[in-house]
């Protein structure tokens, strides 16, 4: 009976296991065949059978009874892990007690093979009560990291969050949950979801960002609905001239601001789509606001609006031009939008650094500015040299001549 049991066991192995490079094949007479000939004798063959890599097809050539191990049910945790590292399928069901399971896990961790660790964890996840699993993993960092990684990969969100909460890794819980919003395509559902994320235990800074994200999407939904109406109604000029090529939903804040400066510039602060409302709600710094508004108005060639952006009135009623960004940046953006020279010139004139001013003025042919600057510098030579850059008989040439004469 024992003999036939052994035969059956070894047959089961043949069925379970796939071809294995480590196989030592033995003919019926005991002679090894195949690639590796490192174990010619019968005795060493029996030694080899205690090494997990070997299987033989001839039941009666098995080693002495004393060293007999039942192939499918007596592998120790260490050996089981070893077998799994070699890619062999192993049933872990026989590890029933908690103790056995933990030893198995620790062996797997000691073996460093992530594959095996994950496999053991899958088994434990299935056969242990959650609280026990969590408690044991809390003191086993490596295994814990593996389980977290596995749960993320496999999309087992609920269990992952429970685990993180148990570990009091609250920020990770928050971020992990927030990540899920990417899988929600429907805007309304996404908005709802984000609202739910606000109360989560993010860090203080991150909490304000999540809040902003929700508020932004909420606004975008309103703006999108409104603007679609405006577009189809066909009454608004700017929508007719510049039809929208894409929706504003899920766009970043600054892009939304640009859009708002483009299509809703003149609206009062009270509306959701007005730029000033966006600025106030999201506390957009002046620098960013001015840059964005400038880019939008320049694209629309609304030079008066650009002018107004930089004009401030002091208490005496005098206007002066100011910018939270350097005027050379203003010039850059205007030039990129093909602003006419007269407009460009105004701003080149305001560039503080003389060398930059001259460079830009020369580059963009703002003759008046060049001339004025050289005049201020009292640079006869450069002024004379510049004459060849202006048209003969032009007003600029006359201006140069008159200045040179009066120097």
């Amino acid at each position, binding site marked *: 009976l024992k003999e036939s049991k052994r035969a059956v066991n070894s047959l089961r192995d043949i069925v379970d296991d796939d071809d294995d490079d480590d196989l030592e094949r033995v003919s019926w007479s005991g002679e090894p065949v195949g690639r590796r000939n490192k174990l010619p004798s019968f005795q060493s063959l029996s030694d080899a059978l205690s090494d997990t890599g070997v299987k033989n097809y001839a039941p009666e050539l098995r080693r002495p009874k004393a060293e007999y191990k039942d192939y499918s049910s007596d592998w120790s945790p260490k050996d089981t892990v070893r077998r799994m590292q070699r890619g062999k399928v192993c049933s872990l069901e026989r590890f029933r007690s908690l103790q056995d399971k933990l030893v198995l896990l620790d062996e797997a961790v000691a073996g460093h093979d992530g594959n095996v660790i*994950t496999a053991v964890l899958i088994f434990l996840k299935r056969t242990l009560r959650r609280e026990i699993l969590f408690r044991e993993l809390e003191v086993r960092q490596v295994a814990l990291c593996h389980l977290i990684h596995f749960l993320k990969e496999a999309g087992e969100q609920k269990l992952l969050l429970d685990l993180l909460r148990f570990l009091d890794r609250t920020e990770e819980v928050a971020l992990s949950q927030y990540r899920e919003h990417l899988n929600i395509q429907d805007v309304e559902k996404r908005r709802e979801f984000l609202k739910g994320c606000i109360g989560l235990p993010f860090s203080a800074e991150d909490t304000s960002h*999540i809040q902003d994200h929700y508020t932004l999407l909420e606004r975008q939904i309103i703006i999108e609905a409104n603007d679609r109406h405006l577009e189809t109604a066909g009454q608004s000029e700017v929508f007719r001239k510049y039809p929208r090529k894409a929706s504003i939903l899920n766009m970043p804040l600054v892009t939304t601001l640009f859009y708002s400066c483009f299509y809703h510039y003149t609206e009062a602060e009270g509306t959701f789509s007005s730029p000033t409302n966006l600025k106030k709600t999201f506390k957009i710094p002046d620098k960013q606001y001015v840059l964005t508004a400038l880019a939008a108005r320049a694209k629309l060639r609304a030079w008066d609006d650009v002018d107004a952006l930089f004009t401030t009135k002091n208490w005496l009623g005098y206007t002066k031009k100011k910018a939270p960004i350097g005027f050379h940046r203003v010039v*850059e953006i205007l030039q990129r939008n093909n602003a006419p020279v007269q407009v460009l010139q105004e701003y080149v004139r305001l560039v503080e650094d003389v060398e930059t001013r001259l460079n830009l003025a020369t580059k963009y042919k703002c003759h008046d500015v060049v001339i004025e600057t050289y005049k201020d510098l009292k640079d006869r030579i450069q002024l004379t040299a510049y004459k060849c850059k202006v048209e003969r008989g032009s007003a600029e040439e006359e201006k140069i001549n008159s200045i040179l004469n009066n120097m």
Partner: protein
Amino acid sequence: EKMFTLKPGRLPQADVKNIIFFVRPKLELMDIITDNVLREDRGRSPQRDFHILFVPRRSLLCEQWLKEQGVLGSFIHREQYSLDLIPFDGDLLSMESESAFKECYLESDQTSLYHAAKGLMTLQALYGTIPQIFGKGECARHVANMMIRMKREFPGSQNSIFPVFDTLLLLDRNVDLLTPLATQLTYEGLIDEIYGIQNTYVKLPPEKFAPKKQGEGGKDLPTEPKKLQLNSAEELYAEIRDKNFNAVGSVLSKKAKIISAAFEERHHAKTVGEIKQFVSQLPHMQAARSSLANHTSIAELIKDITSEYSLNSLTNLNITRCETTWWTSFSLAKIASEDFFDNLTVEQEFMSGIDTDKVNNYIEDCIAQKHPLIKILRLVCLQSVCNSGLKQKVLDHYKREILQTYGYEHILTLNNLEKAGLLKPQTSGRNNYPTIRKTLRLWMDDVNEQNPNDISYVYSGYAPLSVRLAQLLARPGWRSIEEVLKMLPGPHFEERQQLPTGLQKKRQHGENRVTLVFFLGGVTYAEIAALRFLSQMEDGGTEYVIATTKLINGTSWIKSLMEKLEPAPF
């Protein structure tokens, strides 16, 4: 018989009995395979059998996935193909494991370290046991432990080969987070930065490679990118790949003269013998000429780009299609011509320790102009690493600007970068970087790009920290930098492996030691160039062979740490 790239949908028509899927054990690939299998026409005859071959290891997770999709049973054989280290060149091996850094440093999953150890065991089986192992870093320690354990468990693997390697140096990537962030300035490094070298191949814009045929008005411009293979089998490439880009031009022009002169020889050939000789040389000369033409074109392309970024060369666009249609003039207009150098200037300022504690104007401007996000991330991370972490106010400022400009969802990526140590708040209130920089001489003002005398030429002034550590290990040894080593993360250690008597080699006088440097988490071409420079130094004493988990550049590296924001296609 035939090889196809894995794609979702129906499998291509092929009159074969067996179909083998040859894949890395990634879950996304399992989805594609499932799709292929499910779409297979069961009614067709003859029926085709499916098999799956995992590289380098089977994955129980993947098989579980296939089981849940109901297709696991369709595979007759499920095997593994243990390809751990892949030779890329005579002195370069890579596992090409893209996720190794993320897994090791973000997820504490050390599976790739296990493969590294196995790869090293295979290497030792072929080239002899390595007698000395040095290491720095947590992962290095793990790999060394695994190697020792594996050796103990398989004593039969003791072999009688004379050791080729004298030393193994294991280095964690996070010991030197700085180097991959900086823009590489060697010829090969720049090609990788701009176009991306994949498995020694690069795809280039075809315009400059169109053959100039007489009489053809250039109307048939090629549209397919030009694909070139880059390795040391190409003589010219081997000569220029590791040079600083500024030194390449003179080599190319000298080569042009030599090749022209060689072709001119045909006028001097008078006798039949001489003509015969000339003709026999022709294939070699033609190959040399074609090689020169290719590299002259590439050098021109790089020159164009490093002096003017154009829309096409920005391979790291991280803006969705919807955004680009319109807001282009606002966000992505042709960026000013000096941008490459502005970027480089800021990098060099940070690396030499200037103003790393304040918000940087150039970075702010780039965010405002919505330059590609990865470029921004590289710069802020570089600043953070050079400052041992940013002041909370500065960090918050950058984060806010990034989230407002690129979208709030990038909180997830920023969180990953913090976990990896790349972009984090300064915790101890101390900045160790200046000490490290000074002690290890990382910033060299008097760099000579044409005829370098120091490894700092690869970044035109910055000596890669990782390579300095290797250099100092060889001479005078790490004891001289104990203090600095303590400031870098992870333990440093030395192990010795017993060699059977008789195999202990005594190096002849003048014979170089051979050191295998294994970068755990990735290595850049610039670092490889620096190590090759050390190898060919007179009286250097050591030759280097390089191994790594992956060949990286700053862009691919940061990308591997970014959260995937697009939902999966399935």
